[in-house]
């Protein structure tokens, strides 16, 4: 109703023909790409500083171009391609010091062929973990559209269970009430007066938790299955 949810695979197909879409996709997946490469390398990396991330980005673009929707999910496939390219890069980097270029390139080609083959075989497997990862990436992208950062959420996230529950209830009220939800999405402002009437929560309390409530609403709408609150709701 409010989110015409497009699957990742559909976005990838679109990205093949549209540079804008590709750029948006890369922008949304940058943290994911970084985390995959970091986990492979085993240290924190920064864009613009570490070459491994450039390799990761080009691997992601390669995954977009070579993705076939009939064979499975994009996330698993892209991770395999990124991992394979990063391994290529690391091996190349370490061998450059000792082995001649011809020998190295031959090895690299063999390795790439093997890994690509492996990637194509593996990416068909659906993974439950991947769906959570995808949800998180999409959630982060959604919050970004609302100018909400995770650091801000850490700062304003209520520490008390009771208060958190009150804000969750407020989020549920918004989700259940189409008019309030419509106004929120249209104006990007929380209709505090309306919620106050329904929940009998003090206006100031609602104002303090405004960002957190919006974040919960977006999580529910995005169907972030990890959250208890989303379970059984299924999002929209």
């Amino acid at each position, binding site marked *: 109703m409010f989110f015409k949810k497009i699957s990742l695979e559909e976005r990838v197909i679109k990205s093949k023909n549209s540079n804008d879409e590709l750029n948006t996709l890369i922008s949304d997946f940058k943290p994911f790409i970084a*985390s*995959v490469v970091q986990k492979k*390398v085993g*240290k*924190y990396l920064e864009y613009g500083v570490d070459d491994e991330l450039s390799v990761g980005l080009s691997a992601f673009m390669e995954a977009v171009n070579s993705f076939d929707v009939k064979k499975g999910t994009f996330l698993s496939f892209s991770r395999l391609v990124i991992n394979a390219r990063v391994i290529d890069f690391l091996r190349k980097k370490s061998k450059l010091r000792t082995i001649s270029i011809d020998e190295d390139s031959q090895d690299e080609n063999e390795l790439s062929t093997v890994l690509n083959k492996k990637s194509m075989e593996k990416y068909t497997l659906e993974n439950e973990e991947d769906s*959570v*990862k995808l949800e*998180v990436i999409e959630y982060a992208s959604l919050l970004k559209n609302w100018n909400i950062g995770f650091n801000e959420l850490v700062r304003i996230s209520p520490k008390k269970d009771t208060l958190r529950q009150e804000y969750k209830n407020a989020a549920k009220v918004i989700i259940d009430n189409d008019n309030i939800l419509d106004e929120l999405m249209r104006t990007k402002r929380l209709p505090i007066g309306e919620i106050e009437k329904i929940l009998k929560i003090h206006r100031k309390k609602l104002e303090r938790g405004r960002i957190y409530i919006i974040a919960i609403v977006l999580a529910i709408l995005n169907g972030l299955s990890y959250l*208890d609150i989303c379970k059984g709701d299924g999002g929209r």
Partner: protein
Amino acid sequence: MKAIIMEINKKYCIVMTEDGQFLKHRISGGSVEIGDGIIIEEKNNEFSLANYKKTWIRGLAVGFAVLVVLVVGSVFSYRFLKQYLPISSAPTVAAAKISEENLADKEVEKNLQSVPQEDSAERPLGESAAAEDNAETFQQSPLFEKVLLLKKENVLTEEHINGILFSYQVLSTEQKVLQVKIENRNDSLKFEGSILLEMMLEDGSITRQVMIELPGFNPGYIKEEKIGIENGETNFKLVVYGEFN
């Protein structure tokens, strides 16, 4: 408690717990991926313990601060009040000193009696005459008595006597000089009386007396005197006679 990695930073990750709390968690980048599930310790107990300790430390700090303020405040307020209280109502160390001085005075009187009359010609004319002329004043009970040192040079020392500020310093020129300044700092009270300076040797014996008359010493009046310090004089007794009206 289960949590999910939402964002990875250099020294910490931001996680979302299953109950919807966003937290910073110390995991170095490179060991986890976005979307990974991890188990984090519930910080409720830890936090309460920390809070408990914090509360105690804070309470102790506040208590200590209050104690310091009370002690310092009482010391300063006592000193402040002391200068405005009549000497008779403030039995202090100064009073004990005065009683000692009285004994010394008696000895001095004895000495004076034993000194031949011719010696009086050697004294400065003004000093001895003033002392004798104010014999009646000596009979009155003094408002203030205190023995003050002449050892420190060029150091201004102040004494507050019921609104009269008596300040003095030893000037080291060719001959040592005692410079005194008397100021009536009362708003409306006029002082009628005199100030007697008894110059003393180190053993407490009085060498001479200098009387400074302050008749009709109105508020704001200032009087300055310079008295030469003779050999061996190391301190002097300040005696204030008179009344305020």
